[in-house]
């Protein structure tokens, strides 16, 4: 067998057989699946029903507050002292006692929510506040403007805006494209860090255990470094592939055993509308716009997915993952070779971490303006392009920009490997010396 393939096989097998790899492989999809399934699951579970006793001194709210699956209002005719006494003595079965006293101005409402053991949840507080707000609003509309509030509700406008590609006529789904690009970018970010630092630790392990000198007497240092980087890249790809497959299996299995859970046209839709009714009016309106029509919702997603060009996304992801990792992997290898222990890596890690972090920090801005100059430059500069271009791609990027970005990334990768090779060659045999950037530069110039 070729010597470099020996290195690649060892690096690959020694990592894939580790327990931590197995744990990550199975935990990852479970986490992904949980992220997709659990919210749906919890949404279908009816939450606890809170009973709230109400003492209303104003007469505005009495018997008008709406009960829902989570709150039941129970009106008391007693005064507040009696009610408080009864609440304290646990005579009532209620969870909280709402007291709405009279106020000087008819525009104010200063309600108090008493509780004994469990503080009322934010959701409950919002719900109560909302009910009061709505009822007060209605009262004021009637008394001050002389309009029947039901008339205002009757003219509730219904706006629908869709975006369509002028050439293909395909409907795009902003939320979906954003999400896919974003997930891709974040995955690349994590993969670069996780597997880049694996390369670094591997180099450091060989250096500190001193086995490296035996190995470089059999193979060139550059081959050893590349073998390690490629071996770890294959580990990353394996992990990714297993994640995709396992996540798919889990989701399919859950869907099979509980078909309604992930079906947006089924129960979940009802749950969502129920949930939205908990929100304040303005939020409710927005969420109504965002949620899909019962008939066209699922079809719209399918259509949206078609418009995204999955093969393009996938190949872009693989390209940027691979070359982004290779670029950073080479730098990580150089760092590992330059120091004697993991603590010393910090000073060299910073310049590598900053561009990646910057790409992530800028990501939400880039999503808002995927064609702007910031997005353009960040997706061209090789140190941020793997993450940023991935976020941009679903929005549609001119071919020349992608080509330029990819070309620069490959060139920078070659440059980084050349540089790292020089540092690596000297670094692996250098012990007990405090290394700074000046020293590293010397290593690059004097080829050991």
């Amino acid at each position, binding site marked *: *067998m070729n*010597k470099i393939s*020996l*290195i690649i096989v*060892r690096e690959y097998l*020694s990592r894939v057989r580790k327990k931590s790899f197995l744990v990550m492989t199975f935990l990852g999809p479970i986490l992904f699946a949980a992220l997709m399934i659990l919210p749906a699951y919890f949404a279908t579970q009816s939450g606890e029903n809170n009973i709230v006793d109400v003492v209303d001194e104003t007469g505005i709210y009495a018997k008008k507050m709406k009960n829902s699956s989570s709150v039941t209002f129970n009106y008391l005719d007693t005064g507040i002292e009696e009610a408080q006494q009864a609440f304290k003595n646990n005579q009532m079965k209620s969870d909280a006692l709402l007291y709405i006293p009279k106020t000087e101005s008819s525009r104010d409402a200063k309600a108090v929510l008493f509780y004994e053991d469990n503080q009322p949840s934010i959701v409950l507080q919002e719900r109560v506040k909302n009910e009061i707000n709505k009822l007060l609003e209605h009262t004021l509309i009637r008394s001050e403007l002389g309009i029947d509030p039901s008339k205002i509700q009757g003219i509730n406008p219904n706006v629908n805006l869709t975006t369509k590609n002028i050439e293909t006529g395909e409907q795009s789904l902003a939320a979906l494209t954003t999400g896919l690009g974003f997930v891709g970018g974040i995955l690349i970010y994590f993969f670069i860090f996780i597997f880049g630092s694996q390369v670094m630790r591997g180099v450091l*392990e*060989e250096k*500190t*255990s*001193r*086995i490296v*000198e*035996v*190995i*470089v*007497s*059999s*193979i*060139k*240092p550059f081959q050893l470094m590349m073998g390690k980087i490629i071996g770890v890249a294959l580990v990353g790809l394996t992990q990714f592939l297993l994640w995709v497959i396992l996540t798919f299996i889990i989701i399919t299995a859950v869907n099979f055993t509980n078909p309604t859970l992930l079906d947006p046209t089924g129960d979940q839709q009802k749950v969502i509308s129920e949930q939205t009714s908990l929100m304040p009016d303005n939020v409710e309106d927005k969420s109504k716009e965002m949620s899909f029509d019962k008939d066209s919702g699922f079809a719209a997603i399918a259509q949206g997915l078609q418009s995204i060009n999955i093969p393009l996304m996938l190949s872009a992801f693989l390209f940027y993952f691979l070359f982004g990792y290779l670029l950073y992997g080479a730098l990580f290898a150089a760092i590992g070779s330059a120091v004697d222990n993991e603590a010393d890596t910090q000073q060299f890690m910073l310049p590598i971490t900053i561009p990646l972090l910057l790409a992530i920090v800028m990501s939400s801005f880039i999503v808002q303006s995927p064609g702007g100059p910031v997005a353009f430059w960040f997706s061209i500069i090789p140190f941020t392009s793997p993450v940023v271009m991935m976020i941009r791609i679903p929005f549609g990027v001119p071919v020349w920009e992608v080509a330029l970005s990819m070309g620069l990334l490959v060139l920078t990768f070659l440059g980084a490997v050349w540089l790292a090779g020089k540092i690596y060659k000297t670094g692996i*045999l250098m*012990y007990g010396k405090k290394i700074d950037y000046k020293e590293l530069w*010397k290593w690059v110039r*004097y*080829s*050991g």
Partner: protein
Amino acid sequence: MNILEINGITKDYANHRALDDVSLSIPEKSVFGLLGPNGAGKTTLIRIINQISSMDQGKITFNGEKLRQQHVNRIGYLPEERGLYRKMKVGEMALYLAQLKGLSKAQAMEKLEHWFTKFDIIDWWYRKVEELSKGMQQKIQFIITIIHEPDLLVFDEPFSGFDPINQVMLKEEILKQKERGAAIIFSTHNMASVEEICDNIALIHNSKVILQGEVQALKEEYKANEFEIVLANFNKPIQSLNDHEMKIVSDNSEDGLFKGRLRTTSQLSTNEVIRKLISFGEIRSFREVLPTMNDIFIKNVNEIPKE
């Protein structure tokens, strides 16, 4: 024939010259001792021979060919600082390192089995390296150095860190490698071991070769015409030896016997020395004192002031 010809090698680091016009010839089927104080440049030279470091000037031929990357499969190297993959299984790691030296998996397996059985560590094949004792790790280190039966073996301070029992074993195995036909470069501070196993030596000091040759020839060359004698029934005052082109270097006389060392002050042959001594008394014991490698080492190193 020489397996390795080193011609005028110079190597500069940023702040100093590690090797300065170093030329050496290493004959095949022999043990070559590479001596020198710390920091003399021995490890740099060894790394250049192993193509781990490059040289700035000079030329190396291996078996008559210019030294190149393919030759690494014909060279075995045991570095001074040793280490193994602690988390790997012993057998798997040995197989890996043997294959890196160009053996096929089947060849490597067969040879490793032989050596592991010979050193009685075959039971450890499936254990992790970190579970092994230091002595066992060193045995494995030795095995992977010689497993591909190289033409040239380079041992950098091989005895350091070996316990006395393993040192003896190691010495025997090194000599067996020589019998097999390998040339061995042996870098060390341990002068006693040099006398025992080296055929030739080179002394490197301040980046230069300051002495090179066969061990026996060097001893002859550096002998100080010194003799250790025991005289009995001497009839003249022993001090008068000083008037006969000789000088008493040390005197540990006891029980009416003269016991001590003397040195000739002019070029006297051994026979002439004996003739003169007979005229003084009865020779009980007579031995020519040859310098140890240690003496030669110290003498040469001290003659050249440290830069």
